């Protein structure tokens, strides 16, 4: 059964109060309630009477929530600027991860495969781990970022629109990203690594890219979808 403090937590999170402020407020309220309960019991009330008297003295949920919500400085960034937290920040993080992955590919190519025209060749020894690290960053980061969006949205009880935008953008970028590497003539023999974001030159390629986008979206959005369904079920119950 939900306690009054549970419903206060939900109300504060939905109003955009940052989870760490909610956690601290509720911890102090729980301690305070416990002191009030002890005081009322000491005054001779029964356990049940002491509990209800303590709750009355603590304050109505409306008052307790309003006192916190009216302090704008306790609002989370997800509430203040959801567009930045759910779309811009994930895309910047993804760009940074892709940059690191490309840097690993380029440096590994120069150091470990100096004579090769492309870094996309079978490798062995240390090169397996080095290129493997870059590949892991390239493939795992979009999923980690997507799950980060889900976690943030769930923790902050965010409305669906901005997290959904963030997930779709992340899936689009991850699903259409292509890494190119080549050693152009007249460039001093130094290989170049670059990235492009495209659906593809032909219809089958476009279909392949779109199915890749859909697969990434499903993978990163599924936890949040499951959480929302489970939450809707528990609220309606």
């Amino acid at each position, binding site marked *: 059964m939900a306690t009054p403090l549970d419903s206060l937590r939900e109300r504060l999170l939905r109003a955009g109060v940052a989870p760490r*402020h909610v956690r*601290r*407020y509720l*911890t*102090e*309220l729980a*301690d*305070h309630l416990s*002191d*009030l309960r002890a005081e009322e019991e000491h005054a001779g009330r029964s356990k049940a009477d002491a509990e209800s008297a303590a709750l009355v*003295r*603590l*304050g*109505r949920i409306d*008052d*307790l929530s*309003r*006192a*916190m919500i*009216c*302090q704008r*400085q*306790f609002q989370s960034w997800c509430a203040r600027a959801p567009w930045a937290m759910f779309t811009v920040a994930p895309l910047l993080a993804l760009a940074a991860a892709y940059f690191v992955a490309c840097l690993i590919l380029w440096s590994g190519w120069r150091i470990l495969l100096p004579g090769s025209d492309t870094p996309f060749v079978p490798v062995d020894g240390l090169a397996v781990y080095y290129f493997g690290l870059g590949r892991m960053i390239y493939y795992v980061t979009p999923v980690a970022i997507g799950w980060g969006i889900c976690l943030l949205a769930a923790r902050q009880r965010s409305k669906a629109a901005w997290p959904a935008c963030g997930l779709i953008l992340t899936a689009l970028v991850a699903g259409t990203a292509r890494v190119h590497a080549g050693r152009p003539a007249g460039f001093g023999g130094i290989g170049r690594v670059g990235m492009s974001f495209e659906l593809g030159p032909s219809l089958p390629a476009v279909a392949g890219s779109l199915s890749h986008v859909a697969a990434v979206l499903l993978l990163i959005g599924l936890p949040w979808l499951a959480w929302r369904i489970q939450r809707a079920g528990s609220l309606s119950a």
Partner: protein
Amino acid sequence: MIYLESLGIKFAVATRETNPNFMNGVPELLILRLLQQGEMYGYEIVQEIRSRTGSVVAVGEGVVYPVLHVLEREGALASKRRTVGGRSRIYYVVTPLGTRRLTVLSETWNQLAAAIQRLLKGGNLGDATRFSS
């Protein structure tokens, strides 16, 4: 009054209508004054306010925490977690900035209270007449 009630602070005296800015800073003033005498945790603060004001200022007990958190965030208070009697509590203490703020708030409040007292006792009525004529 809206401001104070948003902080859960109610006055036992009957008030029909009040300028919200009129009593701004009262919760901060009371809390800073109490904590200047020593560190306390939320429950202690509320009980002290109640006992020292003869229950005239009755704080909706839980709403003292947002005020404490704001003061801490603004640097007027510092907090530390301590375990006393097997229970972990967050104790608050006034910082030098809080002491300066208390001085300012006290002066403002004293001026306000003195002005109201003068008015209630009928002083400076000549001035009031001059203003209205």
